[in-house]
């Protein structure tokens, strides 16, 4: 079996388990490459029907093209899309000037918590990958979050033979991670193989491109001439830079992501 087929089969298996075993289910869609691949896999898993809503936590600070693209794709694919903003935090004037980790926590982590509790989700499908950064490399495929949405990373349950954590008390929820085993190149090769529509911010213009998408204030571009899928894949084969090097919140503290994710960040 080819590498991509194997990854696809495993991700579809995970999505189907989540749908069968968890109650109310939603999928986070950030408009980025990973969650767009996830959207595609869900279409495949359920034969064109996606039996749960998509969720976008909008910080109102996203790169503007992302929002235009979001609304266009949602309309074209007929997605059941929930857009949520932590308006109280924005009204209270929270922004990166207050400290990037504080801002991420308020606009993303807390925004996400509000959606989970407002809609009563038992499962949230999230497109994180092990190769992105250290704390994600330690994740489980089905990862429990307690009442306060905290990740008890020091005491994760055993996970073996694709028998996932599907039993948990009411009020807890499960973060489902179908892309954990994929790496950045796999994502791009799959986009090429499946011809998946992808936002053009990833393609180089005037010697620059985005390698990872986020809020405009905290996301930098990289120097690149890669303006096609083939060129992006070639570039990634030789690069030695970290995928999230352009994400400023990661650089705030050596354990920034661990700390954010412990509190419920995606």
């Amino acid at each position, binding site marked *: *079996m*080819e*590498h991509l*087929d*194997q990854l*696809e*089969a*495993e991700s*579809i*298996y995970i999505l*189907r*388990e989540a*749908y*069968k075993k968890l109650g109310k289910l939603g999928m986070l869609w950030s408009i980025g490459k990973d969650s767009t691949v996830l959207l595609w896999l869900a*279409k*495949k*898993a*359920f*034969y*064109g*029907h996606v*039996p749960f809503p998509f969720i976008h936590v909008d910080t109102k600070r996203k790169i503007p093209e992302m929002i235009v693209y979001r609304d266009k794709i949602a309309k074209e694919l007929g997605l059941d899309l929930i857009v949520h903003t932590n308006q109280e935090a924005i009204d209270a004037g929270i922004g990166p000037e207050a400290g990037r980790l504080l801002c991420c926590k308020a606009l993303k982590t807390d925004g996400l918590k509000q959606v989970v509790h407002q809609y009563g989700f038992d499962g949230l499908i999230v497109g994180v990958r*092990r*190769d992105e*950064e*250290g*704390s994600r*490399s*330690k994740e*489980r495929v089905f990862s429990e979050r307690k009442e306060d949405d905290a990740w008890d*990373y*020091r005491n*994760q*349950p*055993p*996970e*073996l*033979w694709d*028998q996932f*954590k599907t*039993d*948990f*008390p009411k009020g807890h929820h499960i973060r489902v991670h179908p892309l954990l*085993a994929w*790496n950045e190149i796999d994502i791009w*090769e799959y986009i090429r193989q499946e011809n998946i529509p992808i936002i053009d911010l990833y393609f180089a213009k005037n010697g620059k491109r985005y390698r990872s998408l986020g809020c405009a204030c905290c996301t930098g571009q990289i120097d690149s001439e890669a303006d096609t899928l083939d060129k992006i894949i070639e570039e990634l084969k030789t*690069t*030695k*830079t*970290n*995928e*999230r*090097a352009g994400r400023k919140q990661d650089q705030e503290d*050596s*354990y920034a992501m*661990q700390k954010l994710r412990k509190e419920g960040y995606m």
Partner: protein
Amino acid sequence: MNEKQAGLNIVVVGHVDHGKSTVLGRLLYDTGALPSGAVEKVKKIAHDTGKPFEYAYLLDAFEEEQQQGITIDTTQIQFSTKKRDYIIIDAPGHKEFLKNMISGAANAEAALLVVDAHEGVQEQSKRHAYMLSLLGIRKVYVLVNKMDLVGYREEAFRRIAGVLGEFLSTLDVHPLLYLPVSGFCGDNIAEKSRNMPWYKGKSLLDSLDLMEGKTRMGDSALRFPIQDVYKFDDRRIIAGRIEAGHLAAGDRISIYPGGRETTIASIACWQEKDKKTEAFAGESTGIQVQDEFFNQRGEIITRVGDVPPLVSKRFRASIFWMGRQPLKFHKKYKLKLATQEVEAELAAITKIIDAAELTSRKDAEEIRINDVAEVILQLKEEIAFDLFRDFQATGRFVLVDGYDVAGGGIVSAVEEEGSLFSERTMRYIMEHLPLNGELTVVVKDGKVERLERVEKEVFSGIDGEGI
């Protein structure tokens, strides 16, 4: 797309502090497999904390892991050679984190067992080796690490290899290679060391490529457990992943445990480009069948003529226990095998093995955390399954206690319904009890079928066979 072989998942196991993460960190560092950001980050941490650069920090990402210098949870890192891609799974060596070690090792096809040349074989070296044998991981390399601490001497290496080899052979684990290495100094990791001219083998990096790759069960009998049944549109699709064998439109199939037969009408797809008439082991697929009788998650589909799965309410298994609460008699657990879920109870403990000493206790009344045991399980309903040695995916299961997966196991034999007793108990009964008078011992086909009113009397005379 390229000439590379299929990927291989390798777990690194061994006793705490024997240098598993350091060996791996070094391998990744020396082969340039890491993004510069990762190395810079560890350098910065070393600088900020005033500690020396630790290769292990490249894998031990948690703050607590770096502060305490131990691996808490398992990590997977991708790594490539010219020959193929690897997923290297780092597993914690501390006894307290055995459940995390098992979570890592359960995903592996091959293992590197790391032993400290200075400290020699320790408790977790043995326990981990036992777990490898139980998980069915047969491709094993032994790395005798920290050779720099024993002056790179051949006899130190030989001694440890000898002691370990003898222990492993009792588990039927036969390492393919023994390598003398130093993760800290980089000896025999990415390149052959000049410090050990007596060692004629290859470096770890070159040795990895010698390991045989995955063997997919494509030619075997079909095992297609039903994961779900969809009716999103006018199609009724039976969805699942093929665990062994292959299926094709037109195949006659049997659905177990019921055993009803029908024919595969077609293989479902979303897009026209994915249309196909055959599917193979490893694929997540979906089929439409001709006779639309009730199907449900958990049932196992095979082809008519294939070796059928076993169907029973009772089987013998080797299990490992990871729960804080012990596994007890007279308590209900949820057993999950492939996509089936059924209520299960402990019917007998045949023996409990101290995995570090390989001694067995027979007087046990419960199975405690980190114990390995041979047991008989009684299920509430019949399920379809296989012996682990025949089909891994349908021959292994987990036990859920409350909300948590607390144990895992492999099926070793099917037990007839009603055979309450082990062979040893049977022999005792046959030898010591008069099969007449007031005793109502009914034996059928060599098994005790009924033994109701005299149970207590019988058991007071049997040394410790827990029923």
